[in-house]
């Protein structure tokens, strides 16, 4: 992402800070991705929709970008693109999410990913 700091002056880049994960802790903790997307929309809709914008997500951030994009109306919004990197198609992750939620411990999750990440 740091390479994007040389972006042309027509592009304004923003990094998303997840509530209670960084210094920004005024927003309640989200229990799941859908709730996180809901809170994001509530807090930021008018700001990011004031000009054309692109959602970019890396890895699991891509999944969040996808979930948020789904919450925008099909017409009448300024969303131009959703770019997802280092992440499988979110549509393929539905079964994966069910599998994750049924796992009992964090060790099992780590074991699941020990084969080489999500890509």
């Amino acid at each position: 992402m740091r390479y994007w700091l040389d972006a042309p002056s027509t592009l304004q880049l923003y990094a998303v800070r997840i509530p209670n994960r960084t210094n920004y802790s005024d927003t309640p903790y989200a229990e799941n991705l859908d709730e996180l997307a809901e809170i994001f929309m509530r807090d930021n809709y008018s700001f990011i929709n004031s000009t054309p914008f692109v959602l970019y997500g890396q890895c699991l951030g891509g999944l969040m970008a996808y979930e948020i994009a789904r919450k925008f109306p099909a017409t009448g919004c300024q969303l131009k693109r959703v770019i997802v990197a280092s992440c499988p198609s979110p549509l393929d992750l539905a079964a994966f999410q069910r599998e994750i939620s049924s796992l009992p411990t964090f060790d099992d999750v780590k074991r699941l990913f020990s084969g080489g990440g999500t890509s």
Partner: protein
Amino acid sequence: MFILPSGESLPVTRKNTVMRHVVRTSILPSFVSQPRVDNANPGQINSNEGIVRDIRKILSEVLKLPEDSICDDKSLIELGLSSLTAVELVGKLNEISLHQVLASDLYEIKNLKQVVTLVVEGITPKGLENNWLLPLNNAPNHVTKIICFPDLGKMLNLEICNFTNSTKAAKHQIF
């Protein structure tokens, strides 16, 4: 005259007047709303030209200053804002703003750009600091925002993503 796409309506203020500056920047085709580069004054604000001009005029009237003396980089306090003029200024800004502007917001404002941000986007300087969105670069004339979602797994300290191997080899999917 504007021809709106079906399903869209003109943005209006809380007093049901059309937000002309928003129409200029978001509804007109992009080649029309592209900000002009002011080569003579590269430091001057030249995006949202209409609203900047309107705000400058309002500040001039309320603060009793000539328009050309309202610099982009001076706070409203430096320009002579008092508790009485703040009330008058809030009233005038609310006439052109979709968002409610409060007198307390004005005291935090450090430059004209922040007034524009407050009026156009409803974000106070303090609000921007505490917002989800951390600006990564300074592009005052931007026409597009890119919202970057970091890897949540990395942020959660769950070492579930093998970044060292996957980042370079990842196939970037564009929807």
